[in-house]
């Protein structure tokens, strides 16, 4: 587990910064909830003036801002899935490619560790970092709700906490797959960041226009949609299946590609 430990150390600073910033914003967000709930009438008025498409796109037609989880689903949740995905692709995209960019891979590969061993330890490091990131944010959210003295459904809260982790793992595994074939960190992170935003944009579009509704099947954001989780109090098992399959396929492909490729520095 030498490489795992090394990666945990190397990425510790980034993990702490990302976790603290996102947790802090999440808590601040929830602290504003009591005021928002009080001004609900005014807000409802405001929302009615927005274009119907926009309201639908953000799920505000089905959720009430007066409900703590409804409030969270339209505000804090969005930030966590979006910023968390950015963190996830940067973390996973740099795992292998950093060794290639800095040409330290030659050192690593001359040691008695297989390429699959390197991939395994690096993937584990990605998983651990994302798990810690999400656990701390979940705790921060819990703290935020408690400070805001809001009553909420624990089951839905836990689902809304687990879903972002799944999404982060999807983007991380895609980014890692890219880095198993490509060398340049910058290109890998650019492509995966592009994916994070394009997919999000497609998710919005699919909500706004009925014609583009089918777009929702190719964007992973749809599979972790907060509105659906809050309304149905569950996650669609088919969606969980698709997410798991994507993660699994990307991971297996990463192993196979990295094992077979020529490593030239």
């Amino acid at each position, binding site marked *: 587990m030498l490489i795992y430990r090394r990666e945990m150390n190397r990425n510790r600073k980034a993990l702490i910064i990302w976790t603290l910033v996102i947790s802090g914003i999440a808590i601040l967000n929830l602290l504003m909830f009591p005021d928002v709930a009080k001004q609900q009438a005014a807000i409802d008025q405001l929302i009615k003036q927005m274009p119907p498409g926009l309201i639908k796109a953000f799920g505000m037609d089905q959720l009430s801002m007066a409900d703590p989880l409804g409030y969270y689903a339209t505000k804090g949740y969005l930030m966590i899935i979006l910023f968390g995905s950015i963190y996830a692709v940067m973390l996973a995209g740099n795992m292998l490619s950093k060794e290639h960019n*800095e040409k330290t891979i030659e*050192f690593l590969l001359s040691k*008695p560790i297989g390429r699959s061993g390197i991939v395994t330890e690096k993937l584990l490091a990605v998983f651990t970092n994302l798990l810690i990131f999400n656990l701390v944010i979940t705790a921060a959210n819990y703290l935020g709700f408690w400070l805001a003295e809001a009553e909420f459904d624990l089951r839905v809260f836990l689902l809304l906490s687990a879903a972002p982790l799944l999404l982060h793992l999807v983007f991380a595994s895609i980014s890692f797959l890219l880095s198993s074939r490509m060398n340049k960190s910058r290109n890998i992170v650019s492509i995966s960041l592009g994916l994070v935003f394009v997919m999000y944009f497609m998710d919005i579009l699919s909500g706004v226009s009925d014609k583009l509704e089918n777009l929702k099947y190719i964007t992973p954001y749809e599979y972790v949609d907060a509105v659906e989780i809050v309304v149905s109090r569950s996650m669609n098992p088919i969606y969980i299946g698709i997410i798991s399959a994507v993660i699994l396929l990307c991971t297996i492909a990463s192993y196979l590609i990295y094992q077979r490729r020529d490593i030239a520095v």
Partner: protein
Amino acid sequence: MALVEIQGLTKYYGKQRGIRDVSFDIKEGEIFGFIGPNGAGKSTTIRILLNFIYPSSGKAAVFGKDAARDSLDIRKNIGYLPSEVYYYDDMKVSELLRFSYAFYKKGSPKRMKELADRLDLNLNKRIEDLSFGNKKKVGIIQALLHQPKLLILDEPTGGLDPLIRSAFFELLKEENERGATIFFSSHILSEVQSMCSRVAIIKEGELIKVETIENLIRNQFKKVTITFSGQKGKTFKIEGGRKPEWSGDTLQLLYGGEIKNMLQMLNETEVKDLLIEEPSLDEVFMHYYEH
């Protein structure tokens, strides 16, 4: 027993040639030189042995095991020094070396200290603060720490000053006496001559010859540049001199005889300047084609 066996090894990078049909053996316990100009395919061959890259065709075996399939097993007993060393900049030298030998479950702080002392390397410095030569020393130590059965050294002396170089050669001789086999790649002929028992000569991806050092030395010659003052030198001829080339008062030739004889002959002329140097590899190869 052959410790390394290479049979018809070929590697293309796309359409670009790496090496073509290279075959040779390295016996257990020998110091085997691998010599050729830059870009001849030395590193390509080494990278196939370490399974960084896969051969297009042909076979490579180390310790009797397949270099690609059993690479993990093979690397347990290999020490590798790349031609250009890159390490984790954020680590201290001692951290990197401990990280390195932890992979083998061999090596000790004591041996690390000992090797660092002999090569005059400060263990407490950060990798990023090291000069090129000092990084090379880290590379040497990480290759030697776990006392491997086979040492693969790719142009190991670049950046080392003469004092450290001789300390390094001393270490290699000790490792060899302990039983380690050494595969020594270089483009510097004199280095290979002083260290190795046999050499393989590679050029433009193809193996030209595998030769004992004795035979190489028999064919040894020097590149001599003489500048004469006055006209007397213009008629200068020397026995054993080849390919004389005049430019003004300066004569350049390859000399293959006794140095003493040449000096005696030069003594009888008016010499202003004299330079005797090792021929470049290309000149060695030319010499080879002539025979």
